[in-house]
């Protein structure tokens, strides 16, 4: 078994006539946090959506555990252990926190494990426990983001893809969210593919970094090297 759990080769994607992501190779190794940095419009979200199956890639391959999954329905990916936390409010705003979490475990075959999973998540984010009955849309931005991550963890995914979890959060909350992500990675061994703009908070938790610019990968390597690369750092 190779070290890579999720891999893309020559992945390209876009909307309509507009090609946004070109020829991207990424490798997410088991148990690591791969941080994909890039600015607005660099194609980060498009790339994540193409990997997860929300968008059909126009070219290239995606392999999960050595198996090709490009263009497959998101539901199949979820069922096999990939979770996705979309940008912004990745929750159901009209439903309660509890319902949201239950829905996060929608594909779980063994429903009896729901309460146990929920407890795990409450341990990670105690605030959600307090607010079980509250309607999602009325939570604060940070709480919503925690709920979104909690939902993604419900079915014990092996890979979690996060699309800019820091967006719209106050700096102190960004830190809190990043620490939670690191903790998830540490305590559950979940491999994490995360897209970010906020270098300051995300870089410290990353095992490896890729940089996207105008839809192409321009850097791939350890975070330390990136910090040393003045030209690259100037991007941010």
């Amino acid at each position: 078994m190779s070290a890579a759990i999720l891999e893309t080769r020559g992945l390209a994607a876009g909307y309509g006539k507009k090609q946004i992501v070109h020829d991207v190779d990424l490798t997410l190794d088991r148990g690591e946090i791969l941080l994909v940095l890039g600015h607005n419009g660099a194609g980060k979200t498009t790339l994540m959506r193409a990997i997860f199956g929300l968008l059909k890639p126009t070219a290239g391959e995606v392999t999960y555990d050595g198996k090709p999954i490009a263009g497959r329905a998101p539901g199949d990916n979820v069922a096999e252990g990939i979770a996705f936390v979309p940008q912004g409010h990745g929750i159901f705003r009209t439903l309660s926190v509890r319902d949201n979490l239950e829905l996060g475990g929608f594909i779980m075959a063994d429903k009896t494990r729901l309460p146990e999973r929920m407890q795990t998540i409450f341990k990670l984010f105690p605030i959600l426990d307090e607010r079980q009955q509250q309607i999602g849309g009325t939570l604060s931005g940070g709480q919503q983001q925690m709920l979104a991550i909690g939902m993604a963890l419900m079915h014990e995914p092996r890979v979690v893809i996060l699309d800019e979890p820091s967006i719209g959060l106050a700096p102190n909350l960004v830190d809190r969210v990043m620490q939670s992500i690191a903790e998830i990675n540490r305590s559950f061994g979940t491999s994490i593919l995360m897209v970010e703009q906020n270098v300051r908070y995300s870089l410290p938790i990353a095992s490896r970094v890729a940089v996207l610019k105008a839809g192409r990968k321009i850097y791939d390597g350890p975070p330390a090297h990136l910090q040393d690369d003045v030209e690259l750092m100037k991007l941010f």
Partner: protein
Amino acid sequence: MDLFAQLFVNGLINGSHYALLGVGFGLIFATTRIVHFAYGPIFTAAAYAAWFAANVLGLPIPVAMVFAAAVAAVLGVITYQYLYLPFERGQSSSHVTLIASLGLFIVLENLIAIIFGTGGRVIDGYQYGIFLVGPIYFSSVQLGQVIAMVVLTALLGVYLARTRHGKAILATTDNPEMARIIGIDTVKVSRLVFAIGSALSAIPATLILLKDGATPSMGFFAVFIAFVAVIVGGVGSLRGAVAGGLALGMVESLGLWKIPTEWQSSIAFIVLFLVVLLRPQGLFGRTVS
């Protein structure tokens, strides 16, 4: 005063009918965002299916109702699968889908008229019970309309809130993309709501058959009033559809107390006009951005 009491009861009865129509239509609309005009002829088809089951096959009326619901559900699912889904996959604009739905409306309504003839259909020998409570009249079918509304919306409410499929429907209504992200097959959910929404329409359809008989064109009014009830009550809310339907029934009935009856068919639209102007999100709606 007797008249007022009677009109109040009439409003409640008709409102229940509208509410039930609104619940079925609204479930489909809120979840799939399809303005499903063909809901009208499917409602009609359900009435004829019930007629066929009761009159030709000689089944008891409750069984005929179930049969009608099954027919409607199948028609609804077929409509989604072979009409709307291809448009959805082709990423057509909602207006294109709307026109296609109207095309199907024309097709189905005329097909029904060809198959069953253009005259009215009643179940031979069926006689509903009549209640005269003091000055107030209502029939067993009308009582059935109210009970059906209460029971079915309650059941639907429980189904949505408590079951796995129900929650999948709520999730898809709330945020279809998020639903896909957590592994819900939204196409399956759409099929499910078309089945449930259409099956629901069979109940008011059968009751209208019992009350007044069926005609091939009965679906037009049904889908219109359903649409209006949903908008007045607020899209995406079961409570809203019920409230919208009841409000329409009440206003229509009590309004006609003083307004000449030739305005009957316009009252609902005047209410709609005012509600949307003053409260665009509907009585119970949340603002959808």
